[in-house]
């Protein structure tokens, strides 16, 4: 059914889904991500990774709600949200929905242009703010995201290539609660994108296949391409790179990341952690609210 070259094995459906559950469970235990009885909030997008994560956590017995954010990226956002909603409805799961335009007065395309930020930068910053806010307000014990092995390896590759050591400490797959932040974890770090897509297919999980139209030219896509060229020649290279970093080098920068967080003040507008008087998200809101809306052209969206 699927070949995993880094494990030198082919798997049938049954054993592949067991493999994914075991890898997820092992990650959660090794990094002390979740405890029995924890109220978990899953950041969901309608894509393969977040829906697979939510499915895995439910099957492992965790109480997990979902949160999907309406980013306002035209048909793509509507379609993605639809997949998340149908996934939740079919399984009787609770899915919270926050619409950027309704709650904050702007969508991501408009916000990115108004703030003169790259779309992925404005999107990522906005999502992190909303995830944190909903997690804290809902008294969830932990927020989990669908970052997978390929995502983390690509981010690490970029951080190392440019020696952005201030970001290396943030790559530990668990960030403890404190200094105004909720506990956050990434349970999928042992599993790659190919595995997550395969998990969705064999588990009957429909997800949006098409890429976000605003992600074209995203530098991380380029890093992933480079890393997959290496993986083609050296199966297991991505896992060695990222998991090796966690085992052998991450501890060097973890303390620095924790110190950085504890030195932050609080935003005078929303109360979230902030480097200045107003946090970056509230500054974005100020610039974007009332700005001329950006209209996106039609987007071709393909389902699984």
């Amino acid at each position: 059914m699927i070949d995993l070259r880094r494990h030198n094995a082919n798997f049938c459906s049954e054993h592949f889904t067991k493999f994914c559950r075991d890898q997820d469970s092992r990650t959660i235990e090794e990094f002390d991500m979740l405890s029995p009885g924890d109220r978990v909030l899953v950041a969901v997008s309608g894509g393969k990774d977040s829906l697979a994560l939510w499915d895995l956590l439910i099957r492992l017995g965790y109480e997990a709600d979902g949160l999907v954010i309406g980013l306002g990226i035209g048909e793509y956002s509507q379609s993605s949200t639809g997949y998340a909603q149908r996934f939740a409805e079919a399984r009787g799961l609770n899915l919270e929905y926050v619409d950027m335009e309704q709650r904050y007065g702007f969508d991501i395309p408009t916000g990115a242009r108004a703030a003169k930020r790259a779309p992925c930068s404005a999107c990522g910053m906005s999502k992190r703010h909303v995830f944190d806010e909903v997690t804290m307000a809902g008294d969830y014990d932990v927020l989990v995201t669908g970052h997978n092995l390929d995502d983390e390896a690509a981010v690490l590759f970029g951080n190392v290539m440019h020696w952005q050591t201030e970001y290396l400490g943030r790559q530990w797959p668990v960030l403890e609660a404190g200094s105004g932040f909720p506990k956050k974890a990434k349970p999928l770090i042992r599993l790659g994108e190919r595995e997550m897509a395969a998990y969705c297919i064999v588990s009957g999980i429909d997800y949006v296949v098409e890429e976000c139209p605003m992600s074209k030219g995203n530098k991380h896509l380029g890093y992933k391409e480079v890393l997959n060229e290496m993986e083609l020649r050296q199966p297991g290279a991505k896992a060695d790179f990222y998991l090796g970093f966690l085992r052998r080098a991450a501890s060097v920068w973890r303390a620095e990341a924790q110190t950085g967080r504890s030195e932050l003040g609080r935003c005078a507008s929303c109360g979230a952690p902030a480097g200045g008087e107003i946090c970056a998200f509230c500054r974005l809101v100020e610039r974007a609210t009332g700005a001329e809306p950006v209209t996106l052209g039609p987007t071709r969206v393909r389902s699984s």
Partner: protein
Amino acid sequence: MSVVKLMNRLDLNRESVLFIRNGTLVPGDAMLDDTDEIEIRPVISGGAA
């Protein structure tokens, strides 16, 4: 022809795609028939899902 051979012919990286033959996921050493319906599904996403 095998799935791997077809991927090489199409200049695809097998780490970036999944092959679905007649609605079923297949590994790289699976053999293809002229009558097979093939979906080549990209798996790389641009950001956090």
